[in-house]
């Protein structure tokens, strides 16, 4: 069994290791090692197309993470207050949003947007001589859709682990409901909200499939990589891939660290 396991891990991670390794190649060709160099990182970051794509991706990821953190937290808080059928229904919907493959979200949101545009655009044109079309905001909307579920799950896990008597203690000590939310609930939820923000950022930043369907003419970094691969894999692309990988890793580790640290604190209390 151990050999199989090793083989599976090599199969999974060797390509990734190769991409990272060859991003430091000084040669011109992706798979022809000539020596160590950081030149392709320099080239990548001075390529206006890549910088443009990176800016687009960062804008989308940042906005998505912010909106998902806010809406997801509010959803979690709202779901704490309902019970029975409504709660089960929304619980199911949240899990579905996470489980549905990206390609399904991509196609279905594309169809939804196109249908919506066909309905509202004639009205908008008539009224304000203006129409809506695919752009950054459609990518953001589609990303927020499933990242809400991610944030919501994290915040709800935290809420359910929170001692209900903390809220009562705060009210007992004369804090208004809003004061209790601001001084007790929000600070205790902050680690999970932050972790949700970072995860949403990561998922949005590295997403290719959904963005590919609904980005319209915009090019995100994964879309740029995909389109340039058709012209052959260059060390420049390897460098871009390595940057995406490192960024995602860093954010995921940060999110995990925040969650673990705060859970230890809450348990120790």
């Amino acid at each position: 069994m151990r050999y199989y396991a090793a083989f599976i891990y090599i199969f999974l991670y060797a390509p990734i290791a190769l991409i990272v390794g060859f991003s430091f190649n000084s040669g011109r060709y992706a798979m022809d090692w000539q020596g160590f160099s950081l030149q392709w990182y320099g080239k990548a970051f001075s390529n206006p197309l890549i910088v443009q794509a990176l800016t687009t991706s960062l804008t989308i990821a940042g906005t998505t993470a912010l909106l998902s953190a806010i809406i997801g937290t509010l959803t979690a808080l709202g779901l704490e207050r309902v019970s029975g059928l409504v709660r089960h229904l929304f619980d199911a919907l949240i899990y579905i949003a996470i489980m549905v493959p990206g390609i399904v979200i991509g196609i279905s949101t594309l169809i939804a947007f196109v249908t919506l545009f066909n309905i509202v655009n004639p009205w908008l044109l008539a009224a304000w001589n203006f129409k809506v079309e695919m752009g950054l905001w459609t990518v953001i909307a589609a990303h927020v859709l499933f990242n809400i579920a991610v944030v919501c799950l994290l915040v709800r896990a935290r809420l359910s682990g929170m001692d209900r008597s903390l809220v009562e203690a705060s009210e007992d000590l004369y804090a208004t409901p809003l004061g209790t939310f601001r001084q007790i609930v929000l600070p205790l939820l902050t680690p999970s909200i932050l972790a949700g923000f970072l995860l949403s950022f990561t998922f949005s930043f590295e997403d290719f499939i959904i963005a590919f369907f609904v980005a319209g003419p915009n090019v995100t970094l994964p879309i740029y990589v995909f389109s340039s691969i058709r012209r052959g894999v260059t060390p420049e692309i390897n460098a871009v891939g390595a940057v995406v990988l490192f960024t995602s890793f860093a954010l995921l580790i940060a999110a995990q660290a925040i969650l673990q640290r705060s859970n230890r604190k809450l348990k120790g209390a």
Partner: protein
Amino acid sequence: MSLAENVTLRQPVVEFRNVTKRFGEVVAVDRNSLSVESGEFLSILGPSGCGKTTALRMMAGFDQPTSGKVYIRGEDVTGVPAFKRPVNMVFQHYALFPHLSVAGNVSYGLRQRRPKPSPAELQKAVGEALAMVRLEGYENRRSYELSGGQQQRVALARALINRPAVLLLDEPLAALDRKLRREMQIELQNLQRDVGITFLLVTHDQEEALSMSGRVCVMRDGRIVQTGSPRELYDRPVNRYVADFVGKSNFFAGPRPDTVVSIRPELVEIAANETALPTGLVVTLSVKVLNRIFLGEHTEYRVAHEKMGEFMVLSPRKSERGSGIFEIGDTAAAGWRPEAALVLAAN
């Protein structure tokens, strides 16, 4: 005595008038009327599920009565939420805010006031409150760095700093180990005397209620069975339930079917034979020793009599000087004075 006279002149700090609380089909608190007098230490005593915690929560404002009225300092507060009530609570598991320091926890109530007290005022008040519970210099600690007993005292300081009309304590000692519990019992009593704030404690531990409080209210199935001083409850229980719950007792068939005769085990005299028993006993029985538990200053015997059945005898070591300790299987004489036997309602 003078305290008792003062108390009668004042209006109750907290008053329940015919308060009922239903959770669906379950009646948690059933038509309770109760007055908590200013400056007293009152315990509500009862087994779990008797409605004592629900009663406490209705005083704090976390639950509202289904019917009836709650008054605090003569003012009708029925329906008023917790944050508007001048009472504070010490929670069973303390409920210290884990993201705040000890000072942040203790000053929490004062910081909700508008206008906000100045940092200097807060610092002074926190220092005094911590001194009161003997935790000077603990301001910057985190709650999770403290031991159970220290967390308990922070919770007390956090509540007392607000000088509440009444301090509500929900099984505050349940989470502490036995030795610490004894210390905290004494400390709570002293604290209550020093600060002069009314304490209302909820507990299922009869020893805790009897040792600390001036008055005890015994509850059962949502109803108040008896309220009185620990001594009254012990010496003059209104029924078998109170006699059984407050201390130990032997029960024998009463003169009527709905009555029982209750005799405290320590009021039963035991000796080697009838002539060795003290004089003035109304009943003397020849009994057989079935079991013996050595309790240090006392020995507890389980004995049997032909007609009366089995009962308990608590014999002080002092009285054993003549007779010596009895062995299992020994025959002995037991008896009691007329005033030891109480005829009580069976229910």
